[in-house]
């Protein structure tokens, strides 16, 4: 059984692609055959984060138009052989995608025994975002702890529950999970950021994990390594926790409280 996961948010720049790359790598590392699809046609980024931009020959639009087979377009990850990337086209726009074409690709992936398909949604609520979420079984809603991001996530949740395939066919609704990214307990304490409780109060959603604001995310992106591979970093560990939690392990939440180091105490008293 293939499980289709959409990573979505409504708002841009909150960490959808970072999250898609990290969790796809996380599933693959645990031995699950996984594909990650970039739906951001025209603003292709996932290949950079995954470090495979030099190996892109064909993309999702070529497959939809029948100019290449899915096998030709899928790029096998260099770190993990269970992971495949289907890049977006940089030269087209989102209108090149069609519901039928996306449906066919997902069916073909299911026939190839992929266990997880991660759909990296573009920002916004237009065609690209709509197609990324339409076939989903699960939704990872990536949210930053600030009001605009929270409201956009709320809007996206409304669309998930009314315009997806599952909603249209009256099936069991998409399972929705909250991923709170760029979280900084220090800034929550001084009132610059919404807390986990604030966000959950507004979205009333199951919290899958909190990813702390971390330099390692930028470093990882720039070097084309999904941050989950940086096992020493807090963000990498947070994503590993999220993958494990999603797969059914019972792991307590981390990175919600401030670190109580000697410096923390010193600065905390200010």
């Amino acid at each position, binding site marked *: 059984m293939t499980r289709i996961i959409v990573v979505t948010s409504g708002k841009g720049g909150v960490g959808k692609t970072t999250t898609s790359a990290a969790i796809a790598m996380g599933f693959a590392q645990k031995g699950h055959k996984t594909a990650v699809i970039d739906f951001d046609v025209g603003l292709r980024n996932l290949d950079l984060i995954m470090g495979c931009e030099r190996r892109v020959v064909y993309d999702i639009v070529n497959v939809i*138009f029948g100019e290449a087979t899915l096998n030709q377009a899928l790029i096998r990850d260099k770190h993990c052989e269970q992971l495949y990337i289907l890049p977006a086209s940089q030269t087209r726009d989102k209108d090149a995608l069609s519901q039928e074409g996306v449906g066919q690709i997902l069916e073909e992936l299911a026939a190839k025994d992929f266990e997880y398909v991660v759909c990296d949604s573009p920002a916004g609520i237009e065609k690209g975002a709509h197609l990324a979420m339409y076939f989903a079984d699960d939704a990872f809603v990536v949210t930053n702890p600030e009001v605009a991001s929270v409201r956009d996530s709320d*809007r996206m949740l*409304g*669309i998930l529950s009314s315009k997806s395939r599952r909603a249209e066919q009256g099936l069991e609704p998409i399972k929705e999970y909250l991923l709170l990214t760029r979280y900084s307990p220090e800034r929550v304490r001084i009132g610059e950021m919404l807390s986990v409780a604030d966000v959950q109060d*507004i979205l009333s959603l199951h919290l899958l994990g909190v990813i702390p604001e971390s330099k390692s995310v930028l470093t990882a992106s720039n070097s084309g390594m999904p941050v989950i591979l940086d096992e020493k970093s807090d963000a990498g560990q947070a994503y590993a926790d999220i993958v494990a939690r999603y797969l059914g392990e019972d792991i307590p939440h981390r990175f919600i409280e401030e670190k109580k180091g000697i410096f923390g105490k010193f600065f905390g008293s200010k």
Partner: protein
Amino acid sequence: MPNNSPILEFKSDSFSVPVLLLFTNDLQIIEQQLKEKVDAAPEFFKNSPLIFDVQELNKLDRPIDIAALVDIIRQSNLLPVGMRGGNVKQNKEAVKLLIPVYSAHSSNAPSDTPKQKDITPETIESISTTILITRPVRSGQRLYSSGDLVVLAPVSAGAEIMAEGNIHVYGKLRGRALAGVQGNTEARIFCSDLQAELISIAGNYKISDDMRDVVSKKPVQVYLQDHTLIIKDIV
């Protein structure tokens, strides 16, 4: 063609459109009642699409002049977009007036209501259904109930819930809630935590700025008294 961008696309979509049920063929009374209803919430009705339903009339064998009825509806600033439950002759008339014809099947109007000899227009109020919502109402979503609306989950900021009857929200109410949208001044809003952007009963509204002094986190009810919205604790 090398360019594959689509020019147009046919899609099936569903809309919620108010239905006008008619119980009398007296055009004068219809005109008067319609005017009263529309005047109660003119902004809500302005240019609103409308389907009129003549099936009760046909059950009672009361013929009605479709062309005159359409005129009355148009004069009330409503846009008739369909007729339901017409007989063969009425259907022909409607199509001639470019009004689409829908079959009599209806999901919420009970079809086997006992025939009454003297149906007064007041019966319009009694044909209503309560809608129950158990999942959060998200930003950007709109809900409409022709009767009461009961929400057992939060209503987010940017969501809009409307009912011709009462509204109950057993979660935080952060969006907009409009009760009695067809002019029922007796409608009330009940909620366990009032943080709404806007509340309205029969067109009388308050925005969140006017509700600053309202203490949230406790159950309140909202009702209309002398055209003023009163917010009061329950208990």
